[in-house]
């Protein structure tokens, strides 16, 4: 099986989907001729023509709104928002329209569409190229929110998202596009080819939406992570030598609560990690659920390791980013015998 970067895997997912179903169309800013600023759609316009893969005006509201209309017509649009930080002008169309269409029409109209967006930090992108707005989607009923941590999942989940009959927000941790970044920014860059999960089949396959996976088994503490933080958590476990069980959530909504509960009941300790700001981040939801469902198994409070409650800074990238050191400290604290 060929080794693929996350970019190649994502591109392949769209390619396979466009090939199988001519109702799949792909568009967004710089997505057509150029193939996207991260090159995720490279070659698709050439292969499928400009009516199925095209450039869009710089209007996130227009992009999402047009996608809602296309989806209502019966297409399966895959819209790209150039950076998650720029989704806000399209947020109304996502929240008030895509998310609610099925409900408010009792299923008469639906919005089977995917909104892809690169998210997360670690690239010195400053406040407008680093955000992780997942909690702004998980609070909205009617949306599914997916975030892969590796090429295999990225392709399988994106195909699932495109085939899903509900609107899916597909967050792509941009720091993972070209390699499995574990937060050790001072070490040499590792390419995907060195990672097992870059083995990506050529053709069609799916990874189910709504299913988490245990990335690393352990008994001392459960770590709930997604996207880049899965790799950071692994590094933290290795660095500290703590026998952590690391769960890659993959889908935030609907959440695979069973996998989480099973693990926390086993370990009795739980650390939640994400890049987004702490207050009202998705970690709050995870902590709230875990303490509610596993209260009598918990030996320590659920801890959150997150981005600070500040806008994403430029020069302090690594002081802001919740790297292996901070996650490691939380693991130590969570497993300490008092």
């Amino acid at each position, binding site marked *: 099986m060929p080794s693929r970067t996350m970019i190649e895997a994502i591109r392949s997912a769209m390619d396979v989907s466009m090939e199988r179903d001519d109702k799949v169309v792909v568009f967004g800013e710089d997505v057509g001729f150029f193939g996207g600023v991260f090159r995720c759609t490279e070659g698709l316009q050439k292969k499928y023509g400009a009516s199925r893969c095209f450039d869009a*005006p710089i209007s996130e*509201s227009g992009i999402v*709104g047009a996608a809602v*209309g296309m989806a209502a017509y019966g*297409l399966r649009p895959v819209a790209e928002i150039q950076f998650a930080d720029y989704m806000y002008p399209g947020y109304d169309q996502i929240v008030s329209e895509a998310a609610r269409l099925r409900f408010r029409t*009792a299923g008469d109209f639906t919005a089977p569409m995917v909104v892809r967006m690169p998210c997360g930090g670690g690239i010195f992108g400053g406040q407008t190229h680093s955000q992780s707005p997942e909690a702004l989607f998980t609070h909205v009923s009617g949306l599914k929110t997916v975030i892969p941590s590796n090429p295999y999942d990225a392709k399988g989940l994106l195909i699932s998202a495109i085939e899903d009959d509900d609107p899916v927000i597909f967050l792509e941790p941009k720091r993972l596009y070209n390699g499995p970044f574990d937060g050790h920014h001072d070490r040499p860059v590792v390419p995907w080819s060195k990672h097992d999960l870059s083995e990506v089949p050529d053709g069609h396959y799916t990874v189910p939406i709504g299913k988490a996976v245990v990335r690393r088994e352990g008994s001392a503490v459960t770590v709930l992570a997604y996207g880049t933080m899965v790799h950071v958590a692994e590094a933290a476990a290795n660095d500290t030598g703590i026998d952590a069980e690391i769960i890659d959530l993959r889908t935030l909504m609907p959440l695979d609560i069973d996998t989480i509960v099973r693990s926390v009941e086993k370990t009795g300790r739980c650390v939640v990690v994400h890049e987004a700001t702490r207050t009202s981040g998705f970690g709050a939801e995870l902590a709230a659920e875990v303490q509610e469902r596993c209260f009598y198994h918990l030996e320590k409070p659920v801890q959150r390791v997150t981005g600070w409650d500040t806008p994403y800074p430029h020069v302090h990238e690594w002081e802001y980013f919740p790297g292996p050191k901070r996650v490691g400290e939380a693991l130590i604290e969570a497993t300490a015998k008092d």
Partner: protein
Amino acid sequence: MTEFAPLSLHVPTRPSPQDNATIDTSRLSPAGAVRRPAVDVDPTEIHDLAYKLVRVLDENGEAQGEWAAALEPDVLRKGLRDMMKTRAYDQRMMRLQRQGLTSFYMQCTGEEAVACAFQSVLEKGDMNFPTYRQQGLLIAQDWPVVDMVNQILSNSADRIKGRQLPVMYSAKEAGFFSISGNLGTQYIQAVGWAMASAIRNDTRVAAAWIGDGSTAESDFHAALVFASVYRPPVILNVVNNQWAISSPQSIAGGERTTFAARAHGYNIPSLRVDGNDYLAVKAVSEWAVERARRNLGPTLIEWVTYRVAPHSTSDDPSKYRAKDASAAWPLGDPITRLKTHLIARGEWSEERSVQLEAELDQEIAAAAQEARGFGTLHDGPKQSPATMFEDVYKDMPRHLREQRQKLGY
């Protein structure tokens, strides 16, 4: 430091309460005065039409000018009936709301011609993206009134299961896209739908609807940009009824220009039309739909009309406009105008009107009665609360099943 006088903020003045017309009469062209361009006209050649007013019916009810088409009397009688039925429907629904059978209602009094005549030129499969003031689109296609009332009453037979505020209809089969409640959002969706039709090499067209006030919303611009770039088969309707709740159209930027003119900067052809003139609405709608159908791209139409009724049942217009402002019917009552035309042609009479009115009132009353049998907002059969958890997603996820159980279902 500077020789200049102090600046000051311009806040548009309001239409004087004395001036009942509240319509800028300087831009009212006489019936028949505006030319009818070819459907493939270059948009720049008809910029002047954005500042005029296409009118067909003159004061005597005669059809005038190039936009006057030879229409069968039956077609016009159907139009008259549609408008009268729409008004009868509004009146009945107002009554239901006042009786407390539902929470809310919105009339389209005075604007019946716009939706009714527009619908008459569409084909099955075309899709409207309406606002809450286009009930005429459903009525003009003889959509079952019971079905509409069921939605108003949020009852057990409501096709959208009581989920939406009254008047927020949805009926795919009728080419009537779900009304959102959030203003403007549907405008770009209509463009997206039309783009999809073009992508699929279909022949269906879309119609977007928006009010004068809502043209200020972001999605109006998004729609015009996308329509300009991809030239999809869409008709961009702006219903200028002069008011947005308490705000006159000047607050939306209509003080010294027209909403039709907005299209110019996007190279989209546009027309300004007397929306209370059934014949003008029908003729211009036909023109625009033909353009769309021939792959000539979008058309923007400003329908000039007047919101005779309060904004909604929650509104009290006496607080912000002259009490008799609506009574003046600045452009005339569209129903009366079409009636006068038919009578002038010898195809109708006052007696038949009175009779039809009674008949329609009966028909609507019967439908309302039937709908009440399925329950009302506060009484009788209604959707089970268990249904509240359905259709959030296609398949109910676990957390919603849990929540439903928690509620006891």
